[in-house]
């Protein structure tokens, strides 16, 4: 099956007065139809920046470089801004973190919904309105006709996020990118929104990139996971594999931070990872995690830590031999 999205060697650089920052470094992954890939990491790990880079929505100062970026078999890297604009909103829908600020305050919900459809489809206003009503109903918003004429500030956060989801689905996209879609919402709303996203994904058979810092969310919703740290993917595997057998010390540390009910895995104590994600500049080499890693050795300072691969496509970027390596076939990944 051809992947919906193929990303190879995606990097982002931001030149500043003192140094060139590298918030995304050599990110590669595939996304298959109907699949949910989760990008996980702490804030500052580059997961949102990766999504913006794919969409060509980076801030003005940022420079993107990519070896290969293919969407539905088409090369995106060589496309003009106008051509990518035709895909955004039409074939790729995006849901952002903060629904309180992501809708334009001076236009009605209906105006903002219909606008996408009118832009990408050769449709009349009436058709656009019908599509908007249909989708507001799909995202379980009661009384959609009323909501259509309301302004964003008249809606609660949960409703606004539903509107954002409806907006992302207006043109029937093949891919939906959800950037921490529930972080700004309260806990009860969070699971409703995630359940909604999953059921819509199945109904419309879309691929999804789910960006989150919450491994609990990942465990429930993702098929595959890419763990990001300081701009790099440090581990990539199917969700089950990753949760069962984390190979990278960072993944292991992240998993240690999650409370497991009824488990005494860590003697009842919850761990946290000391320190913060460093900013990587062009001069930096070696494993970015080594300063916070319990197992760091001199070899971790060396440049070019390669991605290694276990069976089943389980990849990780660490020079330390995994403790349970005896029973898995190891091969070096170029």
């Amino acid at each position, binding site marked *: 099956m051809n992947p919906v999205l193929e990303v190879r060697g995606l990097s982002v650089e931001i030149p500043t007065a003192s140094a060139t920052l590298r918030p995304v470094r050599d990110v590669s992954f595939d996304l298959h139809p109907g699949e949910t890939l989760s990008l996980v990491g702490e804030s500052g790990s580059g997961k949102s920046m990766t999504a913006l880079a794919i969409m060509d929505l980076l801030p003005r100062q940022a420079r993107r470089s990519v070896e290969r970026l293919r969407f539905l078999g088409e090369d995106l890297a060589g496309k003009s801004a106008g051509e990518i604009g035709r895909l955004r909103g039409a074939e790729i829908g995006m849901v952002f973190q903060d629904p309180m600020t992501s809708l334009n305050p001076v236009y009605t919900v209906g105006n903002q919904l219909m606008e996408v459809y009118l832009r990408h489809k050769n449709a009349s206003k009436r058709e656009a309105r019908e599509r908007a009503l249909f989708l507001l109903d799909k995202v379980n918003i009661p009384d959609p006709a009323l909501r259509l004429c309301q302004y964003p500030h008249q809606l609660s956060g949960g409703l606004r996020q539903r509107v954002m989801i409806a907006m992302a689905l207006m043109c029937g996209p093949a891919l939906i990118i959800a950037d921490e879609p529930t972080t700004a919402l309260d806990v009860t709303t969070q699971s409703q929104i995630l359940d909604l996203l999953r059921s819509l994904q199945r109904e419309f058979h879309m691929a999804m990139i789910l960006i989150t810092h919450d491994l609990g969310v990942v465990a429930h919703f993702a098929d595959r996971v890419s763990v990001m740290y300081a701009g790099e993917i440090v581990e990539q595997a199917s969700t089950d594999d990753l949760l069962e057998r984390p190979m990278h010390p960072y993944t292991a540390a992240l998993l240690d931070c999650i409370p497991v009910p009824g488990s005494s895995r860590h003697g009842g104590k919850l761990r946290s990872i000391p320190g913060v994600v460093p900013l990587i*500049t062009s001069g930096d080499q*070696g494993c970015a995690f080594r300063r916070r890693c319990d197992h760091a050795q001199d070899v971790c300072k060396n440049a070019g830590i390669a991605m290694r691969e276990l069976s089943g496509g389980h990849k990780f970027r660490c020079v330390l031999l995994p403790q349970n390596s005896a029973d898995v076939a190891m091969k070096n990944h170029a």
Partner: protein
Amino acid sequence: MATDLPAENDLLIESAGQAFRRRSLKNIGFMTGLALVALVASIAMLAPILTAQDPYLQNLDQRLIPPFWHLEGTWAHPFGTDKFGRDYLSRIIHGSRISLLIGLFVMVISGLIGSTLGVIAGYFGGKIDAVIMYIITVRLSMPVVLVALAVVSFVGSSLEVIVLVLGLFLWDRFAVVIRAATKRLRGEDFVTAARCTGCPDSQIILREIIPNLMNQLTVIATLEMAQAILLESALSFLGLGVQPPLPSWGLMIAEAKEFVFFDPWLITIPGVAIFLLVLGINLLGDGIRDLTAPEMKN
């Protein structure tokens, strides 16, 4: 060869003062402003040394001599002479004293009024804030130039009256900005902490609030000083500000109005003087704002 990640501490060892000096050297606007203001200030202070000519001495034989760049110009009067034969350069030099004095005094008076009102309104909020906001609204709705002209005319014009009138009028920006800044500071944790320990309000205002307002105060002070200098020149231009024979730059432009056809330099020279001084003060203010509080930069 492996290089280590830069430690956060390496980036922070520079003191605030060092950082200010390092950045100020790079800020062209700030340096230009500083140079212009320093120039005018030293001219004002050294006025009697800089020029041997009496700015008030009339010499009707030597009327309207053009400045040195004209063919008929003479180095005895580098900027020429006015319609009474007074040396224009020395009038410009002595005029700088009037502009700076008025600017400084008005700034102090309006700064005291405005920041007092602003701090009180922002700190106490509620009804007190509403009353002060109302006073600010009333002040803003009065046409400054018109009322200042009327007051100066009805009371009688002198330097003191002009300083007082402008000082009583130009406090609005101080009040508005300081009120907003105080409001913001009042919500900060360190102020809340001080309140929790039972510190009296006066102590909190003096020790916690005011020191944190100094940057904003400096910036508005420069803006208001520039504003005062411009308004003084306008009042003097209309004949209701500084009175002759004092060499106010605005008054010099007014006195030269009739010569606009044949001796336009009589108008351009004092105008350029006002322009450079006000530009310098504004650049200085903008520079201080950029250097001390980059987040205030629009």
